[in-house]
C-alpha cells in the first residue's frame, strides 16, 4: 500500500499574490521565484509529515498540464484558452504547427524539481498531449514525451489523462500504440483523471503497457473494476474537486473492499482545483488513510 499525489498542486495565498503582483508590475520575477521555492519546501514538508511514500514537486511552475512541454517543443504551441473539462478553470489547448513535433531539449529542474527522496513526476499522457492537434498520439509520444522521459529519474512517472474517459474506448488503440513508443524509460502509470473509467475498463484499459492504472472513484463505481486487476492501482480516493475533507477510515474501508493487491492512494486528479489549505489537509488524510489500511492489512 502506497500513497502519493501526482499532478498540479495549488499555489499558496502568498504565491497567488506574488504572481498577481508580477502581472501588475508590482513585484519582480526573482521575488516570485523565491516564493515558489518557499511553496515547494512547504509542500515537501507536508508530504513528508503525511508519510507519503513518493514525493512530488506539485508542478508549481506549470501553468497547465501541457504548457512547459509546448513551449519547449518545435511543432507544438499553446493554442486557445479552453475550458478544462467541466471545471471553471482553463488551459491553453495544444496546437500543432508541424506534423512531427520535437522536444528541443528536456525540461530542466524548474519543471521537474529534485526532491530529498524518491519521487514521482507527472506528465501529460500522449493521448492528452495530442488531443485536438490532429497528430497521432504515437508521434507526439516519440517526438516529445520519449526524450523527456529519457532525461528523467523517477520512481514512477504518472501520465495524466483527462480526456480519454470522455472520448470513449475508441481512443484506447491509439493510446496503446503511443505507450509502446514510451517503453524503456522509467516505470509508467496512466491515470484517468476526473472521469468515469467504466467503458475504458470494459475495453482493456487494464491491459495497457504500463505499470499502473489510475481510476477516479468519485466518477467510477467500485464495481466497475475488473476481476483479477493485477497492475498497481492508483486509486483516486481523494476528491480533488471537492472542498469536503475525506474520512481516512472511510477511504481505508473502501480500498479494502476493492480486493486489489497493489494499491496506491492518490487524489482523483490535480489538487489545484481546491485551495492550498484544503489540499494540504487532503494530503494529510491521504497519508492517514494509507496508514490505517496498512494496519488493517497487517492485522
Amino acid at each position, binding site marked *: 500500500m502506497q500513497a502519493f499525489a501526482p499532478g498540479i498542486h495549488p499555489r499558496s495565498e502568498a504565491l497567488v499574490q506574488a504572481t*498577481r503582483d508580477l502581472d501588475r508590475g508590482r513585484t519582480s520575477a526573482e521575488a516570485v521565484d523565491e516564493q515558489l521555492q518557499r511553496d515547494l519546501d512547504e509542500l515537501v514538508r507536508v508530504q513528508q509529515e503525511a508519510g507519503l511514500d513518493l514525493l512530488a514537486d506539485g508542478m508549481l511552475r506549470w501553468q497547465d498540464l501541457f504548457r512547459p512541454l509546448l513551449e519547449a517543443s518545435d511543432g507544438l504551441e499553446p493554442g486557445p484558452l479552453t475550458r478544462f473539462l*467541466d471545471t471553471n*478553470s482553463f488551459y491553453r489547448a495544444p496546437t500543432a504547427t508541424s506534423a512531427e513535433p520535437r522536444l528541443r531539449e528536456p525540461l530542466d529542474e524548474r519543471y521537474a524539481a529534485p526532491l530529498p527522496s524518491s519521487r514521482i513526476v507527472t506528465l501529460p499522457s500522449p493521448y492528452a498531449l495530442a488531443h485536438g492537434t490532429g497528430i497521432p498520439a504515437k508521434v507526439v509520444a516519440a517526438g516529445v514525451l520519449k526524450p523527456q522521459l529519457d532525461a528523467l529519474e523517477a520512481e514512477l512517472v504518472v501520465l495524466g489523462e483527462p480526456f480519454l474517459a470522455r472520448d470513449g474506448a475508441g481512443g484506447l488503440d491509439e493510446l496503446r500504440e503511443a505507450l509502446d513508443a514510451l517503453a524503456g524509460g522509467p516505470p509508467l502509470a496512466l491515470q484517468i483523471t476526473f472521469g468515469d473509467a467504466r467503458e475504458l475498463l470494459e475495453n482493456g484499459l487494464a491491459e495497457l503497457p504500463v505499470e499502473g492504472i489510475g481510476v477516479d472513484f*468519485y466518477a467510477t*463505481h*467500485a464495481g466497475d473494476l475488473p476481476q483479477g486487476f493485477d497492475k498497481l492501482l492508483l486509486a483516486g480516493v481523494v476528491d480533488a474537486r*471537492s*472542498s*469536503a475533507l475525506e474520512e481516512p477510515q472511510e477511504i481505508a474501508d473502501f480500498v479494502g473492499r476493492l480486493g486489489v493487491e497493489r494499491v496506491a492512494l492518490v487524489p482523483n486528479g490535480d489538487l489545484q482545483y481546491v485551495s492550498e489549505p484544503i489540499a494540504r489537509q487532503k494530503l494529510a488524510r491521504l497519508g492517514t488513510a494509507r496508514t490505517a489500511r496498512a494496519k488493517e492489512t497487517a492485522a
Partner: protein
Amino acid sequence: MTDVKFETREIGSLAKPPWRVKAFAGRPVEEGDVAEAERWAQKLELDGTEELVETLRREEIGKDDLRLVDDWSSRYGLALLERAGLDVVYDGEQRRTEMYDHVIRHARGFEQRGTVRSFDNKYYSKAACVEEPSIDGPYDVDEYRFLSARTDHRLKVPFTGPYTIVDWSYDEHYGRHGALGATAEQRAGARRRFMLDVAERVVRPNAAAVVEAGCDWIQIDEPALTTRPDEVPLGVEAFNKSVEGIPSARRSLHVCFSDYSLLFPHVLELDDCFELQLEFANRDSHELGTDGADRPGYEPLFLFADHEDAPNVGLGVLDIHTNFVEPAELVRDRIVYAAELLGPERVSVNPDCGLRTRSWDVAYEKLANMVEGTRLAEEALNRAHAGSR
C-alpha cells in the same frame, strides 16, 4: 407591415471606475481619478457631482462617504448606458462585487473556501455549500428602487442563475455522504437537490421581490449552463424553478461563450422565457456583409430558424473581449443578417455579454455604435420592405 424597430439593451456589468475601486479598497484616490469622475460627469451631463468630487478629495473616506460613492457609481453606470442611447438599461452592476460573489455574500449556507486558479496567474474565490441555502431577505430590491427612481428607461435586472451558482461552488452538504464510490445516479441526485434548492430558496425570492417592487424584466444569467452537456435539461428545470410563480414580468436567459447546439431542444422547455441573449460577435468576422459567408459567428442562429417555437434572440453584436470598436455598419450587417434569417420580430440587440473588461471609453463607443448600427439596420430593412411593396 409595420416599420421594423429593434430594442437595444445592455447585458450586465461595466467596469468599476478607479475612484470607486480605490475608495472601497481604502487606497488613496488620486487627482487623476477625480479628474476622470469630472470628465465623465460632463460627458454624461450628470448634475450634482460636486459632492462626489469633494468626497473623493478627502484624506479619509468614511463609511457614510462610501455609501455616497456607491450611489454615484451606480448613477454613472446608469447614465453611461442611457447616454449611449440604449432602450433598456441598468447600472452596469456597479454595486455588485462580481456575479458569483454577489450571491454568495448574501446567501446563507455558503462558506468561502479560498482561491483557485482560473488560468495562468488568474484566480477566483470559491465557496462551499455547507447547509441548505437560503436568504435572509431579498438583496437586490434597494438597488432596483434606487435606479427606477432615477430613470425613465425600462430596467432589466440581472440575477445569477442557479446552475452557475451550483457549478461554481463546492458541495459539502448534498453530496457529502457516500460520495466515494457512489453511483452516477446518486451523484446526479445530490446535484439536482442542490440546484433546485438554490433556485427555490435563493434566486426566486430575490427575483420575486424585485418584481414586486415594480421591475418588469428579469434576466437569469447562466454562463455555466453548457459546462456539462448532459445537465442542460437540469439547468432548464432550475430556470423554471427560479421563476415559478413570479407574475407579470418578462423573463430572459443569458448564456455566453458556450456551445449553443447543446441548448437545443431543451430550451424549448423553458417556462415563458421571452428571449435567449447569446454571444455571437466573439465568433464573427469583422468584414461587412449580410450573407452567411460574411457572418460565420452567427451560424448558431440556424438553431432558432429550425425551432420556430424557441424563445426570441437577444443578438450579441459587440465582442466584449477586444478594444476593437465595431463600426455601426458592421453592427447593421449583423442585425440585418439575423433579421432576414429569423424575421425581425424575433430579434433584439445587445452586446455579447457585460463589458466589464473594457474601459468606459471603449464600452461607451461600442454601445453608441451599437445603437447607431441598429438604426442603420432598421433603415435598411424598412427600405427593403418598402421597395418590395
